[in-house]
């Protein structure tokens, strides 16, 4: 047993200050046989959850606390004794954080008034108020402060903190503190203000401090600690430093004995939903659901009634009716305000979620299983994730803040952590390496593992230090971010459960735990996510309504229109949600989906899991009747019948593990997570043993068990749960429906919500040309801020001109009003835009209506003044004979300034010559006989080499008629790598391959296509 417990300890969650992780600190504490360890990060409990969980593994008592920064800049150490203390600590941290800019804290001393119970206060490091007074030899103030804190926190709740780091003034300061304690009747306690585990970590701490102050090491000497003494020390190391005060060490044990509190995990405390007429939440939820059956179903059946009654009973048992009502309320707000939304993830397994319009998926029709979302056996409360129209998501976020109050709602945090390259860059910068040398270091970082290397301009010693420290820094949190959309709500003020602080974005606040921390603590999070396709669907519906008066109710499509499935099955899917990628467009013509359930499978097939697991081709062959449906073992028939014997959905892993090896759902989930995790070889090996043993106990032979486990292992990567795929399939259908019946409106909406999807706006535009959608160029007098419908076509918006952000576009449209611009001078004077922006608009074709060549317009612009009070510049009024821009120049500059090309496809200009030389276009390739030697040309629009492709590369060429798929074997890629990576247009020779309706060219040689003379 140790005679000392460290009560003042900073981890890497003292961002850019602490140099050791909670886990490393606990490992060191364990090596020193410390039975307990406190975590006192600066103004934060960021690391509390990883600290508590790791402490269990080391069998060490975790003591929670923090070092607070007061308004005066002084520090004070607080330790949590009980639940009230935790609430008070969270409240104090919140008050300090909310009183300062992001990343800082500034706690008024008055805040302690009602928030000291359950807390033990230590007087702090040398930056504490009392040590500071003693350092300036102001004994009187120190005396007053000691009594003040003693009175504030109470008898036995305040200690004078003694630290000795072998600094010149430490002997004197320690003596003064001990004298003060004796004089005021306050007890002392020894701490070491730990910032790392071992002395050699001081290097990293120096670097962190330099990064925090953005001052290279050479310029930050005054900020660095003078020595390496703030490591985790033993009683034997500390006792000689306090020879006259052994009680200071003993008191660490006494305090630790009192600080045994950790927050209970899994306690839910949501705001109570205000039900009408004081109904119970269970009754109100039931009434809403039964009331919605008639809206959602043509006919109320026994099956619906049975399922609904079952779900409501489970929800009541799990006490989650209030949670459902809160989510319903958010969705209601969105629906009432015309904000598209829909749930994703496992919530789609629930009929209640469907009836409440949380999910668009009818779980009965899609044969989804409610227990995968919620079951009384599973302790964890399921998260509900909802996608909202991305453009209007902020309205929903602010509604939640308003509805529940900022004291009861905040968003989850994220910790932005160092990766290999970012740590190299930051450490290198602090070591004073020039930017160009750093670029070289970072770009060569992948070679470092090989050992032998040198970088010009960096001494071997510096390079060694750089690599070592960057390695130590990697995976440490750098700063706090905001989760994509995770909301945490609480019934009692949130700041009492966990601290809240301001986010960078105005109007947002974040809790101090990230998604993983909240999940471990079992705190419900509602994900309010933004999905641009939902914005595009909304925009398209609105545009159609404005132009035709027809209101499309996308939510009531019946998913049975053959024309929609024809479109999807054709692979002509550019712009359609989830099925537009090159891989999907190749697979869909083989798969030929005819129902929504097929779409669910389609979007699940092209995922890393099924691809790595080699499930795609067997599934397609079985679906087409080209091979028999077989199962690895008869026990798996029930599980995999729906997916024709292949492992397709995320939950299939759990089901296979259950049916073959008798895994519980919990074990299956752990297996699934391990299979998808990096560095989980050990865990997977132990699951392998359990799987084989379990399977053999079920009468499965070892060989089959090994085979199935290897399939699960191969499947390990990311895959969709079926319910999630079902939710997305709805958006696939809706977007396909719009593309099929309102292609121009749909395209305009997609163009207005970039970036999204697989293809760039240029490819979307080329696709529109192939579908004969009229496209009208940017026009200073006709273009709106965004792309709009004009007749049957699309007028490109001002937002496509480089440099024209939303404000500029709105300004042009506003000043134009109903009085078109009369010319360049008029435009310049009325809009007040810079000449650079007007130049861009000229070169984008925005003034072609003036009838002058673009170069002449640029000349004219040069002579104009934007100030109405100034005379035009003295330029000659004589006409100048400027050579007009060539067609190539016009197209090139237009593309550079808009990212799209409205005119002829670049290949069109060469088509006649290409034909003469026997170079095939995309239509002819599609008809060429299998095995034929061909040469093709096209724009190099997509180049992919997914990790699952074993070194194969996939290129998509585009010409004026469509796409050409090119497959490049690793050997061929190695020979033509540079051309493939950099050439904008390619000429490819190879053999035609065909599978069903899908044609590929298997490349033999590749060269850059520069045009033909």
């Amino acid at each position: 047993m140790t005679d000392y417990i460290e009560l003042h300890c900073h981890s890497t969650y003292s961002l850019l200050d602490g140099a050791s992780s909670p886990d490393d600190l606990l490992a060191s504490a364990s090596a020193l046989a410390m039975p307990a360890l406190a975590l006192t990060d600066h103004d934060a409990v960021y690391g509390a959850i990883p600290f508590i969980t790791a402490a269990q593994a080391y069998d060490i008592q975790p003591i929670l606390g923090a070092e607070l920064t007061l308004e005066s800049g002084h520090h004070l150490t607080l330790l949590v004794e009980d639940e009230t203390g935790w609430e008070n600590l969270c409240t104090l941290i919140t008050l300090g954080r909310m009183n300062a800019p992001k990343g800082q804290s500034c706690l008024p001393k008055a805040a302690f008034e009602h928030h000291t119970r359950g807390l033990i206060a230590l007087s702090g490091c040398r930056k504490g108020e009392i040590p500071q007074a003693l350092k300036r030899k102001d004994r009187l103030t120190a005396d007053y402060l000691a009594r003040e804190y003693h009175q504030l926190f109470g008898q036995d709740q305040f200690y004078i903190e003694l630290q000795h780091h072998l600094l010149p003034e430490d002997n004197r300061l320690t003596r003064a503190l001990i004298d003060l304690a004796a004089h005021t009747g306050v007890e002392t306690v020894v701490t070491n203000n730990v910032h790392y585990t071992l002395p050699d970590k001081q290097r990293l701490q120096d670097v962190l401090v330099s990064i925090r102050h953005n001052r290279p090491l050479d310029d930050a000497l005054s900020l660095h600690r003078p020595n390496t003494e703030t490591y985790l020390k033993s009683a034997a190391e500390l006792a000689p430093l306090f020879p006259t005060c052994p009680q200071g060490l003993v008191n660490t044990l006494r305090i630790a004995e009192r600080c045994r509190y950790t927050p209970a995990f899994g306690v839910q405390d949501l705001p109570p939903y205000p039900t009408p007429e004081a109904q119970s939440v269970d009754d109100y939820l039931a009434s809403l659901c039964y009331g919605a059956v008639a809206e959602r179903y043509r006919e109320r059946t026994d099956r619906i009634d049975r399922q609904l009654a079952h779900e409501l009973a489970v929800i009541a048992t799990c006490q989650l009716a209030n949670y459902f009502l809160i989510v319903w309320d958010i969705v209601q707000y969105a629906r009432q305000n015309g904000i598209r939304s829909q749930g994703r993830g496992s919530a789609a397994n629930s009929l209640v979620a469907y009836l409440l319009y949380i999910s668009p998926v009818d779980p009965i029709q899609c044969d989804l299983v409610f227990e995968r979302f919620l079951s009384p056996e599973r302790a964890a409360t399921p998260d509900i994730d909802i996608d909202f129209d991305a453009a209007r998501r902020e309205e929903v976020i602010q509604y939640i803040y308003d509805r529940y109050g900022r004291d009861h709602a905040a968003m989850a945090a994220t910790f932005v952590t160092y990766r290999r390259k970012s740590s190299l860059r930051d450490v290198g910068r602090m070591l004073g390496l020039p930017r160009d040398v750093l670029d070289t270091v970072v770009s060569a970082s992948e070679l470092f593992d090989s050992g032998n290397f040198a970088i010009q301009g960096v001494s071997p010693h510096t390079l060694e230090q750089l690599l070592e420290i960057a390695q130590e820094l990697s995976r440490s949190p750098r700063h706090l971010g905001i989760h994509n959309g995770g909301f945490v709500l609480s019934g009692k003020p949130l700041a009492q459960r966990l601290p809240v602080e301001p986010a960078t974005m105005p109007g947002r606040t974040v809790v101090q735990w990230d998604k993983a921390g909240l999940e471990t603590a079992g705190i419900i999070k509602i994900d309010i996510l933004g999905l641009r396709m939902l914005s595009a669907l909304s925009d398209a519906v609105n545009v159609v309504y404005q132009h035709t008066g027809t209101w499309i109710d996308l939510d009531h499509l019946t998913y049975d229109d053959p024309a929609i499935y024809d479109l999807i099955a054709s692979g002509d899917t550019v712009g359609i949600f989830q099925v537009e990628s090159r891989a999907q467009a190749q697979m869909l013509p083989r798969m030929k989906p005819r129902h929504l359930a097929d779409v669910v499978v389609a979007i699940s097939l092209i995922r890393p899991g099924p691809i790595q697991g080699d499930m795609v081709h067997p599934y397609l062959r079985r679906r087409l009747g080209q091979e028999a449906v077989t199962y690895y073992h008869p026990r798996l028939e029930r599980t995999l019948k729906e997916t024709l014997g292949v492992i397709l959905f995320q939950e299939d892993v759990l089901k296979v593990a259950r049916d073959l090896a008798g895994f519980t759902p919990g074990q299956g989930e752990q297996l699934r997570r391990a299979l998808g995790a990096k560095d989980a070889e050990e865990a997977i090996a132990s699951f392998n043993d359990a799987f084989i043993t379990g399977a053999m106990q079920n009468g499965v032979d070892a060989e089959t068990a090994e085979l199935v486990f290897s399939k699960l292992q191969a499947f390990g990567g990311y895959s969709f749960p079926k319910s999630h795929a079902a939710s997305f399939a709805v958006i696939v259908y809706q977007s396909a429906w719009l593309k099929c019946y309102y292609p121009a409106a749909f395209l305009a909406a997609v163009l207005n919500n970039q970036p999204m999807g697989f293809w760039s706006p240029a490819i979307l535009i080329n696709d529109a040309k192939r579908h004969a959608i009229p496209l009208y160029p940017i026009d200073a007098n006709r273009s709106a801020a965004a792309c709009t419908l004009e007749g049957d076509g699309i007028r490109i918006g001002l937002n496509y001109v480089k440099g024209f952000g939303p404000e500029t576009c709105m300004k042009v449209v506003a000043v134009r009003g109903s009085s078109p611009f009369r010319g360049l001078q008029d435009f310049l004077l009325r809009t007040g835009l810079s000449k650079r922006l007007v130049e861009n608009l000229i070169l984008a074709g925005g003034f072609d209506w003036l009838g002058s060549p673009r170069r002449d317009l640029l000349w004219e612009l040069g002579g104009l003044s934007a100030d109405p009070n100034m005379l035009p510049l003295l330029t000659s009024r004589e006409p100048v004979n400027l050579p007009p821009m060539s067609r190539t120049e016009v197209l090139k500059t237009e593309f550079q300034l808009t990212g799209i090309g409205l005119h002829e496809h670049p290949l069109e200009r060469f088509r006649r010559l290409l034909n003469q030389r026997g170079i095939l276009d995309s239509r002819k390739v599609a008809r060429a006989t299998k095995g034929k030697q061909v040469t093709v040309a096209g724009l190099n629009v997509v180049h992919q080499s997914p990790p699952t492709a074993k070194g194969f590369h996939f290129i998509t060429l585009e010409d004026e008629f469509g796409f050409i798929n090119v497959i490049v074997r690793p050997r061929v890629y190695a020979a033509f790598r540079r051309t493939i990576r950099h050439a904008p247009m390619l000429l490819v020779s190879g053999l035609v391959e065909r599978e069903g309706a899908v044609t590929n060219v298997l490349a033999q040689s590749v060269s850059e296509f520069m045009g033909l003379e």
Partner: protein
Amino acid sequence: MSRLIPLAPILVMVSDDLPQSFWWNNRTYQVFEIVNHWRIDREWWRLRIARDYFLVHTTSGLLAVLFRDLLNNEWYLQRLYD
């Protein structure tokens, strides 16, 4: 009055890593009391400095600043106060 001493290694007798006496300028100085002890260890990225400093009273009434270089384990006399 204090004066800086040109740095050159000196002979120091130690016990438990603490100086007991030192030999400088052809005579021995007995340490009467260690008044203060501090450590610096910094600037590792260029020329690391790591020293254990001692402010000592000698029996002859001098106040001296000694340090042990932690990198080469040599002792030095840095400063003398009359």
